[in-house]
């Protein structure tokens, strides 16, 4: 415990870099998943292809992906950008199938009614389809957020600053409190983000009662 109190500034710094590596991928995965899922849903074979590809991409362990990406996109192995790109890919692998399910969960006849009421395609998507897909989308984002925040720590073994450094440093120096602090903080960060997403969902979708979400 005293280790934690003596190193509050170090921990705060790592928490900041941690969030900088975790939040952009969550946003990127969400934003890109919407058009990709719409595209995939347009054709059955495309949807199967996208779902299968996502599953296989997700099966790739994070550390090898962190190692391979720099050679492909030209970042450095120790660059936070490298971690953020890899995590965006994982985020997409989780989020695109979720978004595809979300849009499929919207009743076709409701969309037809909206069209009959004079909604243009864009407005219909924004004001009818997206809100109705909202609860399932939210469940997907929650899974992406929690898993992304936890995965950032793996970058620590490559020397990329994040709460993962507490594990690397704590292990090297044999400080159990340091590792414990890292585990607790990472989990707390993930659970707080998850809680904020639930709150955001209630604000944006006051009509939907919270559900346990689709956790697979």
């Amino acid at each position, binding site marked *: 415990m005293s280790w934690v109190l003596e190193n509050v500034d170090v921990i705060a710094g790592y928490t900041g870099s941690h969030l900088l590596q975790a939040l952009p991928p969550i946003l990127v995965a969400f934003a890109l998943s919407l058009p990709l899922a719409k595209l995939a849903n347009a054709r059955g074979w495309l949807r199967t292809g996208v*779902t299968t590809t996502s*599953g*296989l991409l*997700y*099966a*790739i*362990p*994070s*550390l*090898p*992906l962190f*190692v*391979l990406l720099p*050679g492909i996109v030209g970042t450095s*192995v120790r660059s936070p950008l490298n971690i953020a790109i890899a995590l965006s890919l994982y985020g997409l692998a989780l989020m695109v*199938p979720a978004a595809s399910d979300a849009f499929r969960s919207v009743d076709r006849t409701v969309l037809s009614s909206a069209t009959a009421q004079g909604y243009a395609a864009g407005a219909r998507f924004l004001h009818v389809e997206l809100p109705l897909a909202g609860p399932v989308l939210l469940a997907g984002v929650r*899974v992406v957020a*929690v*898993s992304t*925040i*936890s995965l950032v*720590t*793996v970058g*620590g*073994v*490559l020397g990329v600053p994040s*709460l*993962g450094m*507490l*594990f*690397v440093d*704590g*292990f090297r120096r*044999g400080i*159990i409190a340091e*590792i*414990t602090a*890292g*585990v607790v903080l*990472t*989990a707390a960060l*993930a*659970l707080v983000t*998850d809680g904020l997403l639930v709150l955001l969902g209630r604000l944006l979708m006051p009509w939907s009662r919270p559900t*346990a*979400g689709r*956790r*697979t």
Partner: protein
Amino acid sequence: MTGNPFLDALAWLVDPVHWSGPSGVPARTLEHLGYTVLGVLVAALIAIPVGLLVGHTGNGKGITVTVAGAARALPTLGLVTLFALLLGLGLTAPLLAFVVLAVPSLLAGAYSAVESADPATVDAARAQGMTEWQILAKVEIPLGMPLIIGGFRGATVQVVATAMLAAYVGNGGLGRYIFLGLGSQDYPLMIAGSLLVIALALVLDLVLLVTQRLTAPRGRLPAES
């Protein structure tokens, strides 16, 4: 040395020198596979019975869903290093981490498999005089088999990745190459190790994916993972 790290990595991979002995590719792959199978099996011994029971009786449903969800938030590297410090070097510490990380997927898979059985079907089985054990064994488990295998898929993905970190705390497996390369600034070696782990992960995932499709009861679409 060609200057292109990927070509250098391929050159490393095809060099017969690296395919024999205790630190050769076959030995390291077997170690990695061994850790994975052991981790998933031990976790399954705990999680599958509990998941089936919760799914069948409906008791403890809330806790199961919460545990499965919250476990995602646990950083794997943190568990591996923490257990290594607490239990010392050796296989016990990583094995414990594998089990902790594999249990949630297996639990969720077994639980949702049983729960996905149509209540009308289950009642029909009960009306025909089946005992609760028979309902579980002959109705709920076969119907939900793809979801159970889906749980194994999730757990395997998780453990293959974590088994790499086992090398970080002094064990073998394919992670060795990555950490060896990291320590000696040998990027091609890190790539070679990464390609091997990715290949192993994808092969395991494909095998389980095919199993998932094959175990789907006839006349029913395979459940999505």
